[in-house]
């Protein structure tokens, strides 16, 4: 399978989880990555700047109507839903919260599944709510691939467990196993 994009949902414990694997991806990693990380309103640009300093890939906050390019990791801006358009650009919305969240993982995953269909990889990491479960199911329904962090490896296991209950996922991995798996999947 030739994959074209990666979407990631992460909540409680997310900063450590992202720090644990984004910096391990090489600058040559070709698939664009879009991330919804639940966070409170105040911590706006800090996360992207912080991850960017540690990583070979460029980590930025997604801009409305900006293109989704390889070599970049895009974070949903605080308080906006992040969606992907058919021309593979981003759009943002301030529609109502979904799963008590904005940005919501389900919103990103469902719009990405619409666009990339079977060429999409979705990843659910640590988190204390069930956002992302529906989105993971949607990715599977379009023939995409879903990876879930092993609940025993996650700081908060609610989100991985909810995804496992909702969708027949392809891989259950620890954070350490994630970078080599992604390199392998991206290389195919």
């Amino acid at each position, binding site marked *: 399978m030739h994959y074209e994009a990666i979407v990631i949902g992460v909540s409680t414990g997310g900063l450590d989880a992202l720090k644990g694997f984004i910096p391990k991806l090489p600058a040559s990693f070709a698939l664009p990555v879009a991330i919804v990380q639940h966070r409170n309103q105040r911590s706006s640009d800090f996360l992207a700047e912080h991850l960017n300093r540690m990583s070979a890939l460029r980590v930025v906050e997604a801009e409305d*109507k900006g293109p989704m390019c390889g070599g970049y990791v895009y974070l949903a801006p605080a308080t906006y839903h992040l*969606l*992907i358009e058919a021309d593979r650009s981003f759009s943002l919305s301030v529609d109502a919260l979904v799963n008590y969240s904005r940005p919501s993982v389900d919103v990103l995953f469902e719009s990405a599944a619409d666009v990339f269909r*079977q060429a999409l990889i979705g990843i659910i990491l640590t988190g204390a709510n069930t956002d992302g479960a529906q989105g993971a199911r949607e990715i599977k329904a379009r*023939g995409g691939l879903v990876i879930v962090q092993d609940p025993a490896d996650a700081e908060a296991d609610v989100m991985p467990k909810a995804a496992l209950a909702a969708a027949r996922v392809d891989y259950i991995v620890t954070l350490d196993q994630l970078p080599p798996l992604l390199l392998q999947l991206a290389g195919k």
Partner: protein
Amino acid sequence: MPSSSLIAPGRHGKKASGAIRGEDSERLEIDLLLSGIRDRYGYDFTHYSRASLLRRLAKARDQAKAKHFTELRDKLLDSEKSFDEFLKAMSITVTNMFRDPEFYQELRAQVVPVLKTFPFIKIWHAGCATGEEVYSMAILLHEEGFLERSQIYATDFNKQSLDMAKDAVYPIGNIDSFSEGYQESGGKRDLSYYYNYGYERVKFRDFLRNRITFSYHNLVTDGVFGEMNLICCRNVLIYFDKILQDQVLGKFEDSLRHGGFLCLGNRESLNFSAVQPMFEAVDKKQRIYRKRSVPHAL
């Protein structure tokens, strides 16, 4: 469950081709729905950002208890009442008072000193929704001492939202986050100075509302306003595609006087827009722009 083994429970992607055919016909149904609405009611959603439009359409379809978009189309074209309901569902955004407090800090620091020099100040708040950000602006102008010399035109295409904005009534449950935004934005009093409380609701005081003219205006299909000193349109353009964004930004440019200010949402910008040479950035981070007297040579 073993915690350190790669488990691949198997692939289930076989049905993809059938699903794709279904999606293409759904896309056609949506195009027909949108052109039907445009022809019958004059509301043009064809250049809205598709991804969030799709979510809203799906929600509207479910609310109308329609099985698919063609049935939704039939219902909407058949009855104005169901179209009103639809319009409501299509334009609900959720905002706050003093959303993005840093924006209001910069507005005080960089825009207010210029506005103060005018004998009369005209402000257009485009896409005011339920009014929270308009009252924020009125409070700021009051504290800076020139609300009495200002006229705010607050417009939206959702009549129900406009009515709520005109009422100036909000649930008491919202007040904590309103106050927090107000304090962080550089507010000079206690927010409670600006509202009266009763029946689990607050109502903002008339001296704020008296300086605001609420009116119906559709950014997509209606024209320009004249000689504005400031246009505030935050988190509206994100709902439009590039083509429509350009059209609307052109209307804003036409509506501003030279040296007038344009304030966009935190994640919106003039980058790559046709009107970009007509503006200089006052504050890049807070997306505050100022119209030049002569276009900037590229």
